[in-house]
């Protein structure tokens, strides 16, 4: 179980004068599902890269169970990662893509097959990624992220640019896998309804430089329909209470609201 403390004083990129992150602080409890919501370009991906140890160049510290992240070698944390794109190796079969991250495990083949079964890709083990649809590729990426039995799962808008039913199905599968293992999750999205439907707690970030502007605990039991009454009530309440705060998000979300109400009235 992973308890996460993020204290980023300042993060800049070389050659760019403006801070990307400044005074960003939040915590995540063991096994908590956190959604990070903020406008595009707010540095959400940068936060995940810092927490994941892919980028170490910053002022501040990230504590995992009280240990600074720099000790990653001595206190190994099993990370699961899902990117904006599936990022599968096109030269490896579906099964080998999952097995790749299970290096050295005696039951890697078994584990890979089991995960592929759980995301309903049985029978596609021997296919290459390019033979699969976009949604199926994401499912392989989801299987890969959970195959390592992650303690900390980092997800960077993993279901972006999928059609609504496919994204909904993937969110369901994500939550089933999460319930089994209960890793601590940081789930980055700019889709407010998606955040409200999956997370225990939603953290709202401002535009650049990103800082935490609001935190919201969601006590509605799962599964939550992103267009159901409970989520819609919270969504509407948020937009009314903080029209300015969510300005970066409102545009995208409002489109979805309209689309949905049309569907309902039709």
């Amino acid at each position, binding site marked *: 179980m992973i308890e996460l403390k993020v204290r980023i004083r300042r993060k800049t990129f070389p050659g760019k004068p403006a801070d990307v992150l400044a005074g960003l602080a939040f915590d995540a409890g063991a096994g908590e599902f956190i959604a990070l919501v903020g406008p595009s370009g707010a540095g959400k991906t940068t936060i995940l890269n810092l927490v*994941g140890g*892919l980028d170490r160049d910053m002022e501040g510290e990230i504590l995992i169970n009280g240990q600074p992240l720099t000790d990653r070698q001595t206190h*190994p944390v099993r*990370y699961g*990662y899902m*990117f904006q*794109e599936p*990022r599968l*190796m*096109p*030269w*490896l079969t579906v099964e080998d893509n999952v097995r*790749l*991250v299970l*290096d*050295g495990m005696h039951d890697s083949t078994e584990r890979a097959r089991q995960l592929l079964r759980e995301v309903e890709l049985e029978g596609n083990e021997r296919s*290459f990624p*390019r*033979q699969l649809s976009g949604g199926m590729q994401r499912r392989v990426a989801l299987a*890969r992220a959970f195959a*390592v039995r992650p303690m900390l799962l*980092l997800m960077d808008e993993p279901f972006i640019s999928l059609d609504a039913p496919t994204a909904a199905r993937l969110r369901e599968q994500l939550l089933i896998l999460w319930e089994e293992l209960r890793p601590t999750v940081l789930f980055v999205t700019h889709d407010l309804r998606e955040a409200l439907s999956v997370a225990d707690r939603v953290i709202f970030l401002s535009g650049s430089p990103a800082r935490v502007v609001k935190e919201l605990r969601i006590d509605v039991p799962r599964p939550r329909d992103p267009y159901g009454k409970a989520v819609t009530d919270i969504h509407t309440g948020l937009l009314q209470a903080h029209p300015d705060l969510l300005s970066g998000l409102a545009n995208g979300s409002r489109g979805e609201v309209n689309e949905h109400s049309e569907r309902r009235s039709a």
Partner: protein
Amino acid sequence: MIHVSRNTWLRGLSLVGFLVIWQVIALTLKDPLVPGPDVVLASLWQHGVDGDLFYNLGVTLLRVLASFIIAMFFGTAIGIIMGRYPRLDAGFDGVLVLGLNTPALVTIILCYIWFGLTEVAAITAVALNKIPNTVVTVREGARAVDRKLLEVADAFDLRPVLKLRKVYLPQLYPYLMAAARSGLALIWKIVLVVELLGRSNGVGFELSTFFQFFDITSILAYTLAFAGVVLLIEAVLMRPLDQRLNGWRTV
């Protein structure tokens, strides 16, 4: 049943056509300097029975193999480094252009003068001629590497060996295949020149001997045998390897 494709028939047919035209020309000219395929094939058989053909082909093949491995190894390593680090790339680009454009003969002569008429000098000269070529091709591949896939390897803490074998190198395979193909073609040619200039065995040396005796028939017989070996290597080594490494592109 062995399935023989239409392309195989075409390939065979063009070969037969070539032999027929050759025979007709030889019969018309009746010149001892233009022997027909019948005479050449007989000579090929004789050289094979005598054993000199296989011995010299073997020696040449070993030289090709040694210089090929050396050139691919260093060319790939330098190419990856230059593709990865723009600073180094800028620094060594001049040397690279010089290496690419130095005539093979110059490298060969210098190697023989500096290292003596030895096997080491011969193989070094061939490898030096090929390395710049490999560097340029591999560098192109290293520049095109997808950083996002490398990030996956880092995100999941893959061991460096695994990252290299399963994530990095597969992106270079098409470039390595291209370098290997063009490399083999170049190395065959240069090895013969090196043998002609400073070795006392091998196909190149034999050819120079036949040249001194104006033994055109033997020259053509050796050339045929040589061409056969090249085609064989392409069929049993390069094409299957290509299929194995890059087969996923065509599924």
